[in-house]
């Protein structure tokens, strides 16, 4: 079956240096970096496909990408570490938001095959884990291939995306590879994560919302909120953070509606019209988040 189709060449570098050499030798021909492969394989046109995957670089054998290190302030995670390993090892050290984002991504069987690097760098798809990593100020290390050598560069995870949460890694840093992530070990007084719909199966209907904040006697401080639409990107903006931060808590229904209206208008202006089901789901989640925040404040 499909015998006339060309079998893609699979390159399996053992080190980052070999990866860099492969990328430089093949110039622009390599169009698939293979981490876990879960997203690529779930696309409808993946196999048999006459156009895609001419050359594949399989990152499975690069040992450096599997390393896990931690100290008191942060944990460094290789980009090929699976989501399941992160959820298990980081359950007691990482903020709850990231753990629940991982647990809501897929069941354990799939999580064992999804890599954290792949989650961050999938073109045309934004996962809630990636947006939560941006929310938590995660830093990423890039390996940028150069002739006869390669460079390493640390940058903030949000710089991999444009202002609307679409991946721009390949335009800003051609052929760069995310090798490590540095997640700060920090505590928040209030953490909220909620998602509805399956982002992989129905990206046009799924939406997720994550919020972290510090609480004091006057209300909430340092509020950060991120809303993810898997097929469009994410919304992460200081204006929304400030709007939520200026809420007088406990907030009543009228204030809730105002916040809701502001955020929906902001989304419409920036990332365009979202589907009615996403809008309805987002409204429900925001209402739930503010109610949880109210409860939290009242029990202080």
């Amino acid at each position: 079956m499909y015998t006339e189709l060309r079998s893609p060449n699979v390159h399996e570098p053992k080190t980052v240096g070999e990866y860099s050499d492969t990328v430089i030798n093949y110039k622009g021909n390599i169009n698939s970096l293979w981490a876990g492969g879960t997203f690529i394989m779930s696309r409808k046109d993946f196999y048999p496909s006459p156009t895609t995957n001419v050359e594949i670089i399989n990152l499975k054998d690069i040992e450096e990408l599997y390393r896990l290190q931690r100290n008191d302030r942060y944990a460094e995670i290789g980009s090929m570490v699976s989501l399941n390993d992160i959820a298990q090892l980081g359950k007691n050290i990482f903020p709850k938001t990231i753990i629940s984002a991982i647990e809501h991504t897929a069941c354990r069987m799939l999580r064992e095959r999804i890599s954290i690097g792949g989650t961050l760098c999938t073109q045309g798809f934004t996962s809630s884990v990636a947006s939560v990593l941006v929310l938590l100020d995660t830093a990423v290390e890039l390996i940028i291939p150069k002739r006869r050598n390669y460079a390493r560069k640390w940058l903030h995870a949000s710089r991999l995306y444009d202002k609307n949460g679409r991946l721009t890694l390949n335009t800003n840093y051609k052929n760069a590879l995310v090798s490590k992530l540095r997640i700060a070990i920090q505590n928040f007084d209030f953490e909220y994560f909620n998602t509805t719909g399956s982002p992989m199966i129905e990206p046009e209907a799924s939406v997720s919302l994550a919020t972290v904040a510090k609480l004091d006697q006057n209300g909430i401080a340092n509020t950060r909120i991120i809303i993810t639409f898997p097929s469009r990107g994410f919304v992460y903006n200081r204006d929304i953070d400030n709007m939520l931060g200026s809420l007088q808590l406990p907030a009543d229904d009228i204030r809730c509606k105002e916040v809701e209206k502001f955020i929906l208008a902001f989304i419409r202006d920036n990332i365009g019209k979202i589907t009615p089901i996403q809008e309805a789901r987002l409204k429900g989640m925001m209402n739930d988040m503010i109610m949880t925040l109210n409860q939290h404040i009242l029990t202080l």
Partner: protein
Amino acid sequence: MRVELVVDGKTLSLNVSSDKPLSALLRENVEIKSLNSCCNGNICGNCIVLLDGKAVLSCLVPAFNVKNSTVVTFDSFSKTKEYRDIESAYATLGIEPCQNCYASKTLMIENILRRYEESELENNKKSEDDFISELLHENALIKCYCMDSSSFIAVVMESLNNRRKRKNNVHRTKIS
């Protein structure tokens, strides 16, 4: 691309397209009868096999990633003692998955049992709530509504009991 792998105890060397999904490879090149997935990576959950002892959706694994691996499909798993534990749980409870998802659900239960045993050995046992929520998540992976969540949990628990009993019996006979 030449791929060498062990399928159901047979060592095979196949010449296949490197990006061919394992599910297609098993169906077309090895002629495995128990695989009835037709979703082409849409995560219907009906193509579960054990790859190096762990359950995977075979439509999400490309051929180049299974080089030198061991694949166990339901065809050979149904002849093992481990399968009897699950089969007798189905019989005891009078709950059985439909023909369409029988193989996948059974392999998924086997994977859960193995994982549970591993965590018991490592003294890393989860709380019952965590275990059950994990089961509910896993049950949702197979898009078939022949068995509801509570029945699925009951089957897993019963299979776990059967396995413990069998292992204890083996242990006792060894001692005596």
